[in-house]
């Protein structure tokens, strides 16, 4: 009896145990299945949340684009709804956490580092917000699901060089001794950064040779400078710094190396490098819209030189309205509008300026300037060193300025001769601006022999505006870490040095190295002193013409050089956003990084 009862009890226990085991196994399986469901749902919610965060970033980027360079007050903007239209299609909402530090138990906050050239720290204490960047924390809500995202939106001017017309990179031909190859081209140019090239403006093809008021005159250069430039120019049908292929004048072109006319014949420039993207404009229905011409492809470069290289890609149609606005700036801005109303030295006479320069009263307006009218020319007999003073940060000069003046003498019955007055004095600016309502020509008369004088034009945290032509002949140009902004109508430079800053030229620019490439007495090669620019160059692209300065009577048969676009000879141009603060607001805002926060 006892045995049967025990057997019956054991059956129930066994059944219950089996049931319990089965239940446990099934619950485990169900738990795994439910976890799969939760994982799937969570994945879908995360994808939806991330797309919402991306939508918010795109909304901000588009607002920047539409602002056309007007600054946006982000503190005020972020108080408004992220999507002004309600964004009912997006299936969720987004909120941006404030810039004012963590609150409401949320450890995150946004960081505004748009106007700083240094990285900033966020709530982690690490420098995780790059320069010129908004570090936003976005709270997304999809249904009841809240997520936090860290988004880095950077707004920077993206280009190292912009030109309405050809951008060309060349080396400088060497002046060789007998027995040497006269066609060796040394000191190639390098551009590191993205480039924007627009087609030529249709209405600026012809340069009249006339000195009648209101019509542009060629830029007159000293004989030796003109000779060197004209004997080193891109080979083309015409005496033209511009498209290598004359059949391509309406498009936009970037030329990296190529054929050069030298005194010894046609030479080829190798070793030039363009490291960056090339953008062309879409507004003209050109086909092709533009091209990058890399010279000497498939040919073996001379010993010591690499091939010409373009390491990037060319594309079309990336210029939004803000960028277009910035493109218009060099060509359309009236430079006189940039002078602050309180600028001193608003002299019609010579009083204050003459005291500084000892300018002779009888010097008259030199013929190499463009601006018609009875303007003064001031010869710099002393160095100019301008700095900000209490209440004064911008200076204004009515007239042209220089350290070289070519005086034309016309003795009765005798030949017309030109007498050059050279002082070799320099101009330096510190923490201030100078507006020259005329031309500026600076030349180093020591040819680098005078160790005490190394800088013809220098600037620290300063702005120089030349409402005419800026000519540097065998001069040095230096701007230190705090940078300099140069604005002028035309730029012809035969210069060396380290320039850090921004150069804006309304028409075209020609940058040549200082000195001559050749050989010393022992036969060792001597490279010209080159210019290195960290920052960017913007070029409006209107053509300018260069002529030899022989007298103030312009001989129509005298050979001229037409310069169109941005022409770099033996120049290193490197993109550096630190010196482009005034341009960053025209740049596109792009999403650098997006991550989900725990």
């Amino acid at each position, binding site marked *: 009896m006892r045995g049967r009862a025990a057997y019956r009890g054991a059956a129930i226990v066994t059944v219950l145990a089996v*049931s319990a085991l089965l239940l446990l196994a099934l619950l485990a399986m169900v738990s*795994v299945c439910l976890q*799969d*469901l939760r994982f*799937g749902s969570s994945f879908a919610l995360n*994808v939806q949340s991330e797309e919402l965060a991306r939508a918010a970033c795109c909304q901000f980027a588009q607002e920047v684009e539409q602002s056309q360079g007007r600054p946006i007050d982000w503190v005020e903007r972020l108080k408004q709804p992220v999507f002004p239209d309600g964004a009912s299609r*997006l299936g969720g909402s987004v909120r941006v956490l404030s810039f004012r530090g963590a609150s409401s138990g949320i450890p995150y906050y946004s960081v505004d580092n748009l106007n700083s050239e240094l990285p900033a720290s966020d709530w982690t204490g690490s420098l995780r917000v790059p320069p010129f960047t908004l570090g936003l924390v976005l709270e997304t809500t999809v249904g009841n699901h809240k997520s936090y995202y860290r988004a880095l939106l950077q707004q920077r001017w993206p280009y190292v060089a912009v030109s309405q017309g050809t951008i060309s990179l060349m080396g400088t031909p060497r002046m060789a001794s007998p027995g040497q190859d006269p066609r060796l081209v040394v000191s190639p140019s390098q551009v590191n950064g993205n480039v924007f090239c627009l087609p030529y403006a249709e209405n600026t093809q012809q340069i009249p040779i006339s000195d009648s008021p209101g019509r542009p005159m060629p830029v007159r250069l000293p004989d030796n400078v003109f000779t060197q430039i004209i004997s080193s120019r891109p080979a083309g049908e015409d005496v033209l710094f511009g498209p290598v292929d004359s059949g391509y004048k309406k498009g936009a072109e970037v030329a990296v190396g190529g054929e050069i006319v030298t005194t010894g014949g046609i030479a080829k420039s190798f070793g030039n490098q363009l490291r960056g993207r090339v953008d062309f404009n879409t507004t003209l229905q050109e086909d092709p819209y533009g091209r990058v011409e890399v010279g000497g492809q498939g040919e073996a470069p001379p010993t010591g030189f690499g091939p010409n290289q373009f390491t990037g890609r060319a594309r079309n149609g990336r210029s939004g309205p803000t960028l277009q606005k910035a493109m218009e700036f060099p060509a359309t801005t009236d430079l006189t509008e940039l002078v602050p109303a309180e600028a001193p030295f608003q002299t019609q006479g010579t009083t204050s300026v003459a005291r500084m320069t000892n300018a002779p009263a009888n010097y008259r307006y030199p013929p190499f300037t463009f601006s018609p009218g009875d303007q003064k020319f001031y010869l710099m007999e002393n160095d100019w060193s301008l700095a900000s003073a209490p209440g004064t940060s911008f200076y204004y000069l009515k007239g042209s300025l220089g350290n070289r003046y070519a005086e034309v003498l016309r003795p009765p019955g005798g030949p017309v001769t030109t007498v050059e007055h050279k002082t070799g004095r320099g101009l330096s600016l510190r923490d201030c601006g100078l507006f020259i309502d005329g031309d500026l020509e600076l030349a180093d008369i020591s040819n680098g022999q005078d160790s005490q004088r190394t800088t013809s034009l220098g600037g620290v945290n300063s702005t120089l505006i030349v409402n005419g032509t800026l000519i540097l002949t065998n001069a040095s140009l230096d701007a230190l870490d705090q940078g300099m902004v140069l604005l002028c109508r035309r730029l012809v430079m035969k210069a060396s040095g380290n320039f850090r800053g921004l150069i804006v030229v309304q028409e075209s620019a020609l940058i040549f190295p200082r000195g001559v490439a050749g050989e010393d007495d022992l036969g060792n090669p001597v490279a010209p002193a080159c210019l290195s620019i960290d920052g960017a160059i913007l070029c409006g692209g209107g053509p300018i013409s260069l002529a030899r300065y022989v007298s103030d009577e312009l001989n129509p048969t005298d050979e001229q050089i037409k310069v169109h676009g941005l022409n770099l000879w033996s120049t290193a141009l490197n993109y550096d956003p630190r010196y482009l603060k005034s341009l960053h607001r025209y740049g596109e805002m792009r999403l650098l990084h997006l991550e989900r926060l725990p």
Partner: protein
Amino acid sequence: MELVVALFLLSLSLPMLLNLVPGGRMAQRSGENLQAAAAYAEGWLEAARESPPTTDGVDRRQRVVLNGVPYVAEREATLVAPGLQDVVVTMTPAGRGKPFRLATRMKRNVRP
């Protein structure tokens, strides 16, 4: 008697327990389907970012089978501000399943 009770209990609980199997499996399938649909829709939005739609309306529609489930995938763009559009990808499963919707905002390039 106890054996009968035990068998009775087992016969009651076993179907209930075994019923968890298809339920769990359905939940698992549902999660996998949602994940597949979300990943597919995300791919379409990525493609749209590379080459944004240029006009309003449905610009892409396709029948796809994901994880054994047939879907109709549809991408629709709506201009919401100058140069800005909402792009919505809807994954509608055949049958009674709930459609999955993924939306974002992106630029619209307007060629001259």
